[in-house]
């Protein structure tokens, strides 16, 4: 288990990590999600012992990771743009890693590389971006460490390669108790892959855990109101047109903890926190022509949480 306890990391006057506390259980895929500059890479580098935290501590199976070879031997850090020796082939890098990670499965590397059509004797510099990522992922998985720390491994890859890599992870997860921490800034990369997600925002943890569990408190309703006629519940009066729309939104916001409100003509989509029945009752009182709760995607939960944190979600969706 990786315990991240009150970790703070500052770069000059910028707090990259602000008193972060996270627990990453063994044997799961943990996604670190956040916008650019949220602190994902910094957190991974701190976990990997590359950076020393200013405050707090990181414990991997109870031991500190910073400058401790024994602890470091338990994980493999795979950055977004991995380093390799100039002119080195995949076979040479495997040989190198083999000396650092005694459990390295060199045969496994050859097998997986062959399956994916990678030539282990070809210089890595001649590989495409996707091929490099696959090559290093193969080496990372075959290092047989207990933990795997990956930074933006799927970024910029086409869907086929992304799926291939995810399959590699899944296969490995099936065979042994591997804990994977994956940092990404796109939810799509993690959605069908991570069991738990931690959302980082401006150096802090917005929320973490099982997102679908978290999403149980947030509900999405789609409603249709009569656009020309609206009954105001409080005043028992009738208002018309534009005024009716504004009044309706104000009324709903007053009674519900609305995360997102979108109105397109008579069609209104509401994402709100709270009990499903309570939200349903408030909507019913507004005499909608039609209303129905629809299931939320992980992305919507993520966006909802981000917007609730007063963050410009457009940036995250770029």
């Amino acid at each position, binding site marked *: 288990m990786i315990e991240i306890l009150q970790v703070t990391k500052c770069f000059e006057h910028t707090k990259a990590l602000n008193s972060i506390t996270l627990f990453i259980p063994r044997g799961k895929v943990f996604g670190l999600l956040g916008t650019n500059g949220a602190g994902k890479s910094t957190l991974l580098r701190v976990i990997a012992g590359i*950076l020393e935290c200013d405050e707090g501590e990181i414990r991997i199976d109870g031991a500190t990771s910073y400058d401790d*070879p*024994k602890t470091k*031997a338990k994980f493999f*850090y795979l950055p977004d743009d991995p*380093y390799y020796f100039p002119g080195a082939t995949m076979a040479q890098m495997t040989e190198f890693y083999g*000396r*650092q990670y005694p459990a390295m499965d060199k045969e496994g590397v050859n097998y997986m590389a062959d399956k994916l059509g990678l030539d282990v004797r070809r210089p890595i510099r001649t590989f495409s971006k996707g091929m490099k990522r696959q090559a290093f992922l193969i080496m990372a998985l075959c290092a047989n460490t207990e933990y795997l720390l990956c930074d933006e491994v799927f970024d910029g890859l086409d869907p086929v390669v992304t799926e291939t890599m995810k399959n590699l992870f899944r296969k490995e997860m099936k065979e042994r108790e591997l804990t994977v921490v994956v940092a990404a800034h796109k939810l799509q990369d993690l959605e069908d892959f991570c069991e738990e997600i931690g959302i980082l925002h401006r150096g802090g943890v917005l929320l973490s855990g099982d997102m679908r569990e978290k999403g149980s408190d947030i509900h999405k309703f789609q409603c249709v109101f009569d656009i020309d006629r609206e009954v105001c519940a409080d005043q028992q009066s009738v208002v018309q047109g534009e005024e009716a729309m504004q009044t309706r939104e104000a009324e709903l916001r007053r009674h519900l903890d609305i995360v997102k409100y979108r109105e397109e003509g008579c069609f209104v989509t509401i994402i709100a926190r709270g009990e499903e029945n309570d939200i349903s009752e408030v909507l019913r009182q507004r005499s909608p022509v039609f209303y129905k709760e629809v299931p939320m995607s992980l992305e919507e939960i993520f966006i909802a949480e981000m917007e609730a944190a007063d963050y410009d979600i457009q940036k995250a969706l770029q």
Partner: protein
Amino acid sequence: MTSRRLYNNWIREAGRGHIAAILSWGGFFAYFVLKIMALSYDTEYVFFGIGSGELYYLCAGLGIGLAFTEFSYLFQGKKQDFYYSLPVKKSTIFWSRYMHGILLFVIPFILTQIVCTLFEASRDQGFALYAWTYFVRSIGMFLLIFLLFYHLSILAVVVSGKVVAAIVVVMVLIFYFQVLIQNVLQGFARSIFQSYYRIPVLEEMQNVLTPGKLTGKLAGTHLFEKKEVLDYLPETGQIGAAIIWVILLMVLAVIAHRGRRTEMTGRVFVSSAVERIFEGFVSVLAGLFFGKMLMDMLDIIGRGMAVVGIFLCGAGMIGTMFVHLCVEWLVRISCGDVKVRNLASRRRKQMAFEGMAVCMIALAFLGYRHYFDYFLPESADLDGVAISVNGLDMEEDQYRRSSMNQNHTVDNYVTEERLKRYLLKRDGMTAGMEWLAEIVEREDNGIGNGVETAVVCYHMKDGSRHYRRYAVDLDALDAFSHVYETAEYKEKAYPFIENETLSKERITWTDGVTDTVLKLSGPDKCEFLKAYQRDVSKMKMADLKGNLPIGNVRIDSEAEGIHEEAVVYSFFVETNEFLIEHGIDVGRTLRDYRIISIKIQTTTSVPAGHVGGALVRFYDEADEIAKWAETLVPEELAIQPVLCPADTSIQAEVEIEEEDTSSTTVIKCYSRK
């Protein structure tokens, strides 16, 4: 156990580094080939160890080059992350790279030295006797040189986040003290102290604190003679200083590496403390340098000490602030913060402190000026005093060189030699101190206020030396006769008189044109010596005015290694009588020789920007030759540039026919004034 295995695995990987290997093995291979080729045809002036300038530059260059290549990962964020994510301690990575660099140097270096030693020993029997000691000394000294530059560069790399910054730090570490001492402190002393000649403490500091100078001494690059090179072992102090440099730099590098934060890679410096230290040291130096440069350019020194003080403080502070802000700007650029407002507001206190330091140093020189110029040690503290009056008992050529090099103490070997020769400790010292007291007490004793200068070195009992150069006017020159006429001074000026007996020596008389060997028995030689000693003891300095020697007596003894000369003046009555008795024509001058022709070169000064000013004429008519022969004096006899100066603007080459051999000889002469 796991740690140990991981450590061993890493050490195997640390051996990677093709660039470093190419640098080292390639460098030594090229050196080896060139040296073997050179040694093949010259074993006399070609040295492959101590005395080799090429090896010195190779070792220093490899020290810097290997440090940069071995620790290049500290400049590359990606590579650094890669290394630091591996199951290896950071210190293990550091020390493995450190040892790898040393091994890459040591192995090819020792192999090259072994082969060169064997090669030269097989070709030169004389060298074979010294081969082992020369080999060991060369290995020791050049390893020390390598380590000094290696550690210096490692420190620079460790405290810097960018290659360019590290190169700048290396340059600063190598040249800082040289510029500070040579250009600033000695420059201030030269400009502000009127009686400045040299300050040994500053020179010693420069020798020890400037890596280039110190290692140059260790390498013996200043040596040319084979015997000197083979016997050479640097002074213990120099070796000690180099070892201290090496240890200190290593300790600082290790401390800096421990405190180095990974995220600072890419910045100019890796910590605020390093920024401050660099900024402080460079700004203060720049301020002092700027102040000194402007002071010299605008010739402020003659406008009173108050003006000089205000000027130096002002100019120094401007220079300091300018460089401080420049460094600050460069540092901030790497952080993306380049607002002018921020530059000026950041570290204002430090900038003020730097400015104050510059002012204090400048004012300290001005405050010390009176003490320095009027310094006269107590006799009780004095072990001896060396006095060299420029132009007294020296050849015209020496006088010219000595006068030209007045501001270059190190190169002024004429004065330095005379200071060694005229070290007075007895009656000469007493008379000398009385003479110096009069000079020092004068209100303005600076050079440029007299007809000549006198360089003095006070040898203190505590071993220290204090040098001064004073202006000597005509009165002071006359007063110097009290020193000149002491027995001790005459012993130094006329070393001939120290000899007690002469027996096997060969005595030769020369009048500046021909040499004549005196055929003397042992008792005759002793008699000659006594006559000469009596003449010298009777002579007065005033006698030298208007008189040039009529000849020289040279005593040579190959067996005892004696080669001395004694000038003979016309007023040396007993000596002249003795020489005449033994067949020497002491009255023979140029006009008594058969002169074939005379070449006269007249030099006149020309305005700046003009060339020429030299006029050459040849004379071969008897009346012209006779006229010139009256006024010319052989160069060898023109040895009183101050008391009886020759006209050095007229130089002559006199072609003389020797009747006995029917040959001709050319004698260089000056015209009498």
